[in-house]
């Protein structure tokens, strides 16, 4: 089967000689749940942002569906972006607007400029928003302002905003890094459900190795801008973790066997 996303020999250089990514290659299948792990500064966020060109890579190529992402013109790029939802550590909602308004923002990319500017959404779009918010357990919050929500609720609105795009893929940059363990679990469960029931591909940057192992089909380990592990979550050994996290690995004291058992 042809992969949904293919990244080949991707490099990214900031400034003169700080290489954030070096020759990164991997592919992601339709419906797969992939976690990217690695120490701080390894290049996880940079990699994710290169995929939808929030950052322009320096070299290599990226194919998403049938599009060569690196060669896209402005308009085509917007078109491709409507097919890729993005979720952020700090939720990035418009605080002064309501939950449903924030959710509907996911539709802007497919609207005309004028309709988007005036915030004119069709009945179907509003119904879809309500339905997605229901699924995410936010039915009571629809008209609440975003800044009145808890972190976990905000992140669920973030997911709703991404889902209303009808995306083929979700890119999540540390979606649970600012959440308490319970909210984090709710968010991860929702992402997993999105992947299994809706068939949406999920690529997620994570700091917690145990969470990555628990939820992912596959894990990509990055160290200093290079892929050092690319394989199943089950196959991840302590040596692999040592390789991914380097000297930091000693601080990540946990029992790998225990995680796999759980």
């Amino acid at each position, binding site marked *: 089967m042809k992969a949904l996303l293919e990244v080949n020999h991707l490099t990214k250089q900031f400034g003169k000689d700080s290489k954030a990514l070096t020759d990164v290659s991997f592919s992601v299948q339709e419906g797969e749940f992939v976690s990217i792990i690695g120490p701080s500064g390894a290049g996880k966020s940079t990699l994710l942002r290169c995929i939808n060109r929030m950052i322009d890579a320096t070299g290599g190529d990226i194919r998403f569906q049938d599009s060569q992402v690196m060669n896209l013109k402005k308009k085509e790029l917007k078109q491709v972006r409507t097919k890729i939802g993005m979720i952020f550590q700090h939720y990035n909602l418009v605080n002064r607007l309501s939950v449903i308004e924030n959710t509907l923002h996911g539709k*802007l990319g497919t609207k005309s*400029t004028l309709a988007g500017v005036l915030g004119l959404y069709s009945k179907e779009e509003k119904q879809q928003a309500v339905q997605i918010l229901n699924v995410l357990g936010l039915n009571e919050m629809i008209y609440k302002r975003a800044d009145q929500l808890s972190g976990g609720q905000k992140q669920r609105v973030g997911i709703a905003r991404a889902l209303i*795009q009808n995306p083929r893929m979700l890119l999540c940059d540390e979606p649970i890094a600012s959440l308490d363990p319970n909210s984090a679990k709710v968010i991860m469960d929702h992402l997993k459900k999105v992947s299994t029931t809706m068939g949406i591909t999920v690529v997620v940057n994570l700091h917690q190795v145990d969470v990555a192992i628990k939820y992912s089909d596959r894990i990509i380990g990055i160290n200093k801008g290079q892929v050092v592990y690319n394989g199943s979550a089950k196959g991840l050994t302590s040596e692999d973790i040592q390789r991914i996290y380097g000297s930091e690995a000693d601080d990540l004291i946990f029992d790998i066997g225990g995680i796999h058992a759980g």
Partner: protein
Amino acid sequence: MEVKEQLRNVTAPADHLIGGRMPAKPLNKAAIVTRLTLYTLAVLTIYAFFSFDYKELDFMDALLGTFANLKTIFLEPHLKHFSFGHALYQVMVTLGLAFLTTLFGAIIAILFGLLAAENLSSKKTSMVIKSLVAFIRAVPTVLWVLIFAVAAGLGSTAAVIGMTFHSIGYLIKAYSESFEEMDRGVIEALQASGANWWQIVFQAVIPSSITYMISWTFLRFEINFAVAVAMGAAAGAGGIGYDMFMASSFYLDMREIGAITYFILAVAIILEIFAAKIKRKLKTA
């Protein structure tokens, strides 16, 4: 903006105290210069009073006369050359001038404010607009009116253009700084979903900055009201300012000046109350 600069000035000496040793005597270079300046000004002031050409003027008489005038103006106000209704109408004209120039200024400033905000525009465009704005703001409103009066002639046209011009400069600075407060991540999130610049501006940037924008616009409206009064007198722009000018230089009717002053004061107070109400509402909204 200005407030921030003032804050910096206030904290500067404190930094100096914390940073270095506490000086034994609070007599450093800055203090000496300040003191010398003050002494010099005091000496010059006293000298000036002696060197004025008083002619036949008795200082005491003049002082008493001034108080008498003030008393006439403020304690015995009346309207003689025009009616209350006329005064009300003229206040409306002045308010209209202030409103119109603020509205024009606000509309134009929104567009240029967006282009001047570094996070919504390019660094170069932002720099160019900000420098231009700094220049426009450096020249007082009254001067702009007089500059435009060269082409348009002294009158309401020059007043509208000149006041609008300065309002644009003022509001571009205010708006663009509100826009720059905007969380970068929110803009990124909408860009990532394929939204375009206009959609992001109207769906995220303006809703996030609207309270600041309204506050700044209202503040400018109050300024423009004061300027509009002055323009009525100085540039023949009409309104209550012109009546004041007539009362003082043409009819020499001090009581009428008093009445008009009270009128303007009342309007200013009403505006102030209104502004405070709006701000409170915005804060809770």
